[in-house]
Every structure is written in structure tokens, then in C-alpha cells.
């Protein structure tokens, strides 16, 4: 493993990139957001959280009851960690700043999976970081219940710049659910989230991210994943409801033999939303595999759905499904599936489709007695039902519930 670069060198790189625009997504003027927030008090007991916050958090997948089925919880509101707790051995959950002060080795993991000078947003997080979370599954730990992390934007016009690190040590198994959300009716705000995820040999991580934003919020997550020998990374991304501007393109590198990654995303874009979401997978080691599945529904919003698989080693396999449904005249979906290989001994494939629901499918269900509206609802629900191989059944059920809760306005 590389030694951590000198902090000054990192800062210098960040400074040099502070005006570097991202090639994707609308350019966000970082100067228009507030950079400081008042400290939010710590809550030992989550039952005492303000009702509105609880509600929002629950709708983004958080379980906050007394006997919740979670092995750990961490919640950040604006710039403050307001809660962190662990209920199971073998896993550590805490704010990243605290973790960095506890473990000197941890700094080596900063900016390894996501380059600090990727664009002005990564640079901005380095230069103006406001905490983030650290989740650590110890070697061979089987963390049965998911760990949940919530990033909550409460103050209007605030920029939340978080840096998260997840490490699944050798042979461990971990499930993480992250909910990113805002106070209801938030008129403006910026969420910059760096997530660096490390899957050690034979470790398995399922990472489920649920985004629920409001009309005025801009979001620029930057996620990097490194998967070692026989490691498994399963990513589920759900974004529903309005958001002014979201652009994210996770980058996973399978650097170990037999490494597996799977990305499943469900994107629903209402009117007034602009979303550019995607996943890139580099199959750099022999026998590594990936699958990228995206289901996009536009109810008037603009969506670009990207997928990119690069085969850089022999016997790698990659498949992509990029399907979009347009349910409104104003909708716009641009599917960009890309495959690239430098070798012959690879299997890469994709299927993509964009359009409205085929009339034939609606009529098929109507011939069984459903009204047109019921038929459309059943088809859309089915379309958004992504069967995720390898996800424990209760997590699948929870994810499906989250999708249906988030989508109740249009389904």
C-alpha cells in the first residue's frame, strides 16, 4: 500500500484543481452556498430527534425505532455528527474526523479511490471538508444487520462537504444503507459527498444509497470503489423525487482476480429535475466480473444514464442493462452505454432501451381486467423492481419498500 502523500501535497493538488470544471453536469457555482453552520446537538436517543427530521430520514431508508434491525447508525446533520452507535462486534462506525485522529493508518485511504484533483468538487471537499463517516468491518466479521448512515441537510443554502470511507477487511461481510436527504421544502443547498470504498480479499459489501432531495438542491457525489481478490461489491442506488441538479458517476476498479461488482440503480426524475447518473467499472484483473443495471423513469425530468465497462484483463465478463421509460411529454432520457476492451478474451455486452411503455404491454394487462391506469402502474412498478442477486432477502424487501414509499406519488 502506498504511503499517504504529504498532506501539503494533497492540499496543493486540491488548490490547483479548485476551478477545474467537471466534464459532466451543469457547472455549480460553489461561491453561492454558505460554508458554516451552527453546531447541531448530539442525540444519544434518536427518539428525541425532531419529528420532521425523523420522517425525512425514515423515508430515505433509515430505521430509527427502539429495537431497530441495524448493527450501527451514524447521522450527520449539516456539518455535525449528531449520533453514532454500534450494536455489534466486528464493526466500527464513527465520524471520519474522529476516526482519522484515532487511527494514523486511515489517512492512507484518503483520496486513493477518488483522486483529489478529479474536479473542483473533490478539491472543494479536501479544502473545506465537514466531517463524513467511517465504517469499518474487521477481518472475517459477519455483520448481519446493515449499518446505516444518514447525511441530512437542514440549513438552507448550506454546502455540506463530506468525506466517507468504508473498509471491508479481508473475509468480512457488511451491508451499508446510506440515506441522503434534506429538510422538507429546502429551497437551496449543495451536497458534495466523497465516498471511498475498499473491499479487501474475499470481503463482501452491499452498499445501498437512497437519495431524497428537494427541488432546489444540487448534488455532486464522487464515489470510488477498489475491489481486491474475490471481493464482492453490490451497489444499489435509488433516487426519486425532485432535485435541481444531480451528477454522479461512480468508478469501481476490480484490481483483484475474481472480483465482482454489481450496480443497480433506480432513477425517477420528476419535472424540473436534471440528473446525470452512472457507473464505470474497470475490470483490471483476470476473471473479474460486473453487471450494471439501470432503470430510469422520467415523469418530466431530464436524465442521462451512463454505464461504462472496460475489459482490461483476460476472462473478464461485463453486462449492462440500461432501460428508460418516459411517462411524460416533457421527459428526456439519454442512455449512454459504453463498452471498451483492449483484449479479445473478454465478454462484454449491453442492452439499452428508451421510450414509453409499449401499448401492447398495457393492453395485455387490460385484457386481464385491469384499467389502463392500473396497468401502467403495475408495469412501472415491475420496471423498477430490480432483482439484486446476492442481496439478503430482507434487504431486498426493504429496498423495494423504500422504492414504493419514495414513488408513492406517481405509482
Amino acid at each position: 500500500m502506498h504511503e499517504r502523500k504529504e498532506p501539503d501535497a494533497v492540499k496543493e493538488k486540491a488548490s490547483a484543481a479548485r476551478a477545474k470544471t467537471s466534464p459532466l453536469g451543469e457547472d455549480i457555482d460553489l461561491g453561492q452556498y454558505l460554508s458554516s453552520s451552527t453546531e447541531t446537538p448530539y442525540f444519544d436517543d434518536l427518539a428525541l430527534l425532531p419529528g420532521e427530521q425523523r420522517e425525512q430520514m425514515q423515508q430515505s431508508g433509515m430505521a430509527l425505532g427502539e429495537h431497530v434491525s441495524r448493527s450501527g447508525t451514524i447521522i450527520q446533520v449539516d456539518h455535525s455528527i449528531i449520533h453514532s452507535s454500534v450494536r455489534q462486534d466486528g464493526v466500527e462506525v464513527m465520524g471520519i474526523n474522529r476516526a482519522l485522529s484515532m487511527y494514523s493508518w486511515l489517512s492512507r485511504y484518503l483520496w486513493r479511490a477518488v483522486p483529489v484533483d478529479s474536479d473542483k468538487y473533490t478539491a472543494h471537499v479536501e479544502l473545506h471538508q465537514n466531517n463524513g463517516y467511517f465504517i469499518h468491518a474487521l477481518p472475517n466479521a459477519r455483520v448481519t444487520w446493515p449499518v446505516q448512515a444518514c447525511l441530512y441537510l437542514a440549513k438552507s443554502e448550506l454546502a455540506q462537504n463530506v468525506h466517507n470511507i468504508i473498509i471491508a477487511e479481508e473475509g468480512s461481510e457488511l451491508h451499508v444503507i446510506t440515506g441522503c436527504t434534506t429538510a422538507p421544502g429546502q429551497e437551496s443547498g449543495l451536497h458534495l459527498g466523497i465516498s471511498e470504498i475498499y473491499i479487501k480479499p474475499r470481503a463482501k459489501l452491499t452498499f445501498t444509497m437512497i437519495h431524497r432531495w428537494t427541488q432546489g438542491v444540487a448534488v455532486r457525489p464522487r464515489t470510488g470503489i477498489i475491489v481486491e481478490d474475490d471481493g464482492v461489491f453490490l451497489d444499489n442506488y435509488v433516487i426519486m423525487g425532485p432535485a435541481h441538479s444531480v451528477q454522479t458517476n461512480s468508478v469501481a476498479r476490480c484490481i483483484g482476480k475474481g472480483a465482482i461488482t454489481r450496480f443497480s440503480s433506480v432513477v425517477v426524475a420528476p419535472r424540473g429535475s436534471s440528473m446525470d447518473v452512472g457507473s464505470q467499472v474497470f475490470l483490471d484483473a483476470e476473471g473479474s466480473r460486473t453487471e450494471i443495471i439501470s432503470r430510469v423513469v422520467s415523469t418530466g425530468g431530464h436524465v442521462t444514464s451512463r454505464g461504462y465497462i472496460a475489459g482490461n484483463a483476460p476472462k473478464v465478463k461485463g453486462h449492462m442493462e440500461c432501460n428508460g421509460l418516459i411517462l411524460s411529454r416533457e421527459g428526456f432520457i439519454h442512455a449512454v452505454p459504453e463498452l471498451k476492451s483492449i483484449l479479445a478474451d473478454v465478454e462484454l455486452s449491453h442492452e439499452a432501451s428508451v421510450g414509453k411503455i409499449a401499448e401492447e404491454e398495457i393492453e395485455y394487462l387490460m385484457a386481464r381486467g385491469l384499467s389502463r391506469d392500473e396497468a401502467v402502474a403495475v408495469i412501472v412498478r415491475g420496471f423498477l423492481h430490480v432483482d439484486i442477486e446476492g442481496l439478503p432477502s430482507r434487504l431486498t424487501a426493504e429496498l423495494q419498500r423504500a422504492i414504493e414509499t419514495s414513488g408513492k406519488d406517481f405509482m
Partner: protein
Amino acid sequence: MLDINQLSVEAGGRSILHDVSLHLNSGDTCIIFGPNGSGKTTLLMAIMGFPRYHITQGNIVFHDREITQLSLDERARMGIGMSFQRPPVVRGIRMRDMINVSLGEHSFDGGEEGAVVAKLAEKANTTTLLDRDINYGFSGGEIKRSEMVQLLAQQPGLSLLDEPESGVDLVNVPLMGRLINELLEKHRHIRDRERVGIIISHTGRILDYVNARTGYVMLDGTIVCEGDPHEILETIKSRGYEECAKCMSEKSPTR
């Protein structure tokens, strides 16, 4: 129970059916023969109420109610059901979901829904298809059996069966026959049967397993002959549809 009166139907700007009349009483099963492209499927689609089939003349009366103006789903809820020849793949909708949709309000002896679905699927040898996306990668025979399971769940008073034996391998034709017989209540005494079936066939193979009271021959969008189904089938087998065409032109020299 079903009265089709002088029906003319147009689809895609083309006139396809003209002056078709058909009358079926409770418990009747009829079979319509005809070469490809003669308008058999169009007739079923028009009875079912598919919007792209425009009725330009005549009417359809079902259970003493004129249904010509009713929508597809209204007709389905009144008790008209159809097995499709080439049903669409619907990704994300499993065969199990389609059976549940078809069950609608029906419950079988108050049985638990999952068990009812499993039993229906088993009957048609489709248990392994239950959790697959409907029609996705199904073989010809699997599609037919899946369609039959959906109809058995839907229990329509009028079943429209489009080529139920085509694409079905030899071993499975008897099974299709059993499913159709159950759907059309063939186990009940003739006078107790209520359900009505219209079966389309161009080979007539299904007649070895399912009895039909009447046979019809359709040519160029109209019904040209009516009679004992076996007798009609024999004629077609030995002398082809050309014989029907010849017979028709001899009988109605104006056409």
C-alpha cells in the same frame, strides 16, 4: 349468450372483416378454421375490444348487452378472456403477477392466494416459470400453457383461444386439451355448461382433444361455411381451402 351481427372490422386503414355473424349459446364451443391471413385473429381481437380494430358496421351482444362501444378492460371485467398467440414480454412482471392480476376478485374456495397460484401453475406444468418475467424466453409451448393458466385464473364466461395448439410439441397437445376442457367446463353435463369458447385453428389438431359443437370456415374476412367441425376438417384436409373457395363462389355468384 354471444351474438355477433353482420360485423365489419377495419385495422390499420384496411378493411379486414366483412359481414361476419356468429351466434353462440351458453355452453357452446365452436372452432373457426381458415388459412393464415383470413381474418380469424382479427375477429377475436375485435370481440375482445382491442382499440386498433375498428368496428365499422354491425354489433356484438354479450349476455344481452351490446358491448360494441365498451373498452377492452370493461369487456375483460364482464367476462371475456383471450389467450394470445404472441403475447408481449413485460419485463419486471412475473408470470405469478399475471396470474394474480387475472385472478382479480376471484378466490378459489377461499384458498390462500399464493397456494391458488401454485396450484394453477402446477396444473399446466408451469411451476418453474412462475418467477420468470412473463413470456421472457418462454418457448412456444410455455407461452400457450402460461396463457391457459391466466385464463383459468380469470374464469371468463367467453374464452377466445387463438391457435392454442400451434407451436406446442406433440407431448403437450393433450395437456393443452385438458386445460381447455377444464376452462370450458367439459366435465359438466352438457346442459349445465355455461362457458363459451371460440377456438381458432388452422390445423384442427386440437379437435382430437376438445369437442366443439360447430365448425366455421373463414376466408377473406368472412365466414363461408358452418357445420360439423370434424366433417369440415376432413374436407379441408383432403381438398384444401381451395375447395371452400370454390364452394363459396358456386353458392354466391355475385361475389
